[in-house]
């Protein structure tokens, strides 16, 4: 016997303020790329901060000397 239904049965994905799991998944590549951009921005704008210079940037191979400054103590004016 054929069973009829009254109307299409819609299901809605659980979402909070229009954001749901499939949407979030679709956005993952974007989030990763923006994360990289934010990381690069942090590196660029903390370029002159001594803590960052000494902890990270001076340890970069080849170009690390850009962030190091070790003059001979004889050559430093008092």
């Amino acid at each position, binding site marked *: 016997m054929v069973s009829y239904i009254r109307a299409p049965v819609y299901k809605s994905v659980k979402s909070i303020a229009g954001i749901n799991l499939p949407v979030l998944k679709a956005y993952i590549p*974007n989030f990763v*790329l*923006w994360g*990289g*951009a934010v990381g*690069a*921005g942090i*590196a*660029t704008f903390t*370029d002159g901060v001594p803590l960052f210079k000494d902890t990270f*940037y001076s340890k*970069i191979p*080849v*170009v690390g*000397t*850009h*962030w190091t400054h070790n003059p*001979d103590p*004889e*050559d430093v004016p008092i």
Partner: protein
Amino acid sequence: MQISSLFKRNSVYVATILVGAFSFQAFFDVGVNRWYEYHNRGKLWKDVKGKFLEGGDEDEDDDE
């Protein structure tokens, strides 16, 4: 890889600019310094310092 692929997504574009800014300053600085020190080798203060500082007072007396 095409250059235009850098402009397709704003995130890639922004990241390219920032990474470029960060790495360019370091590479440019180190590169120019290396060239300058090679070009002027033997004439830089660090090369000739020994000549002036080892004698100390004696050299100054001779000059005067």
